[in-house]
């Protein structure tokens, strides 16, 4: 096995060159190459973080706007409802007042009409006695040929009283 041929002078030279090459590679990577990668990765990480933060801020702003919008909407709705309720109440009040006034006027008219009816009836009743008396006298005149004015008046009165019209 050539790997175990430690008498070969190339073997020790191989190790010396290994140490040199590995050392130089380590130096180059640690000093120049890897910091470069780290800088790029760090830059990307920072940029992504910044973008995420901006997105977060925008989202918070949008949330606040939505909340404000909701508050304004609910406030407007409450105001509208209050206005509607007030209008309804005033309308009802007005209607009640109007109907009350109407009822009062009607009652007044009814009363006046009733009073008019009563006077008309009274006058009609008064005229009834006169008509009855004249009619009775005329009838008596035709039938008997004599006038009994003194007796006719009380008799008509009695008859009217008996019918409840006197």
């Amino acid at each position: 096995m050539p790997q175990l041929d430690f008498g070969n002078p190339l073997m020790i030279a191989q190790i010396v060159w290994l140490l040199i090459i590995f050392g130089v590679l380590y130096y180059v990577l640690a000093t120049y190459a890897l910091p470069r990668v780290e800088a790029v990765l760090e830059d990307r990480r920072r940029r992504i973080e910044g973008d995420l933060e901006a997105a977060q801020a925008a989202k918070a702003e949008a949330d606040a706007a939505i909340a404000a919008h909701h508050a304004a909407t609910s406030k407007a709705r409450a105001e509208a409802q209050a206005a509607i309720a007030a209008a309804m109440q005033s309308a009802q009040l007005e209607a009640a007042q109007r109907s009350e006034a109407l009822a009062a006027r009607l009652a007044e008219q009814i009363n006046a009409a009733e009073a008019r009816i009563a006077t008309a009836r009274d006058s009609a009743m008064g005229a009834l006695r006169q008509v009855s008396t004249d009619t009775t006298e005329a009838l008596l005149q035709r039938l008997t040929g004599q006038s009994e004015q003194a007796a006719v008046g009380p008799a008509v009165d009695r008859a009217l009283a008996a019918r409840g019209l006197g």
Partner: protein
Amino acid sequence: MAAESGSIDALSQFQLTPVFGPIGAAVGFSQSNAHMLLAAGLITALIMFGMAARAVVPGRLQSLAEASYEFVYGIVDSQVGHGGKRFFPFVFTLFMFVLFGNMLGLFPYAFTYTSHLAVTFGLALIVFVVITAVALALHGRKFFGYFFPEGAPLWLAPIIVPVEVVSYLSRPVSLSVRLFANMVAGHVLLKVFATFVVMLGALGAVGPFVATLPLAVNVLLIGFEILVAFLQAYVFAILTSIYLHDAVHLH
């Protein structure tokens, strides 16, 4: 050629040969070291060219560079925990060096430097030196309390201390032998089945048809070896991170 001589020679692929002419031979620069240099160059190029654009939305190469960075960073962060960040370049270098060594070795004519025990042991020894130095620097003399857990009865010390010392010293051995054995086994298998393809292919009229069987095995093996190449680099990095956790936190 192995097939021409009628025998299977699976081990000559691990033979070190000097490259770059007489200068390479003079400084003992083998093809193994050339592949190390290639891997180091590819790793550096991946990161440097990949991150050249410094784009916020990465392209393909930058995605690859960032993915490798974040993968190893995830290992170090989850295993070492608090105070692990300063060891990240070390673990990253180890992981990429082993991964590229394993992966480059799967290319035809390429050499797998992680299939040399000396190389893997060298890497494991670097890890061992680093974790011991870190533990000594952070905890001073208290580091030696690591070999005798607090609260254990004192009369057990003659048993516990040697066991703990041996287990600590065996870390580089297990770390290196695991990687070395995995890579050697994979490459020997590939070579053996590849030799079968050539040998069976020479068996007259039916030969080419029979030879497709070991060829199919090799296709599957290559897929398996890619998995192993990645897995062994991952294991190397994660064990290093666990050792670093022990060094930083002492249990």
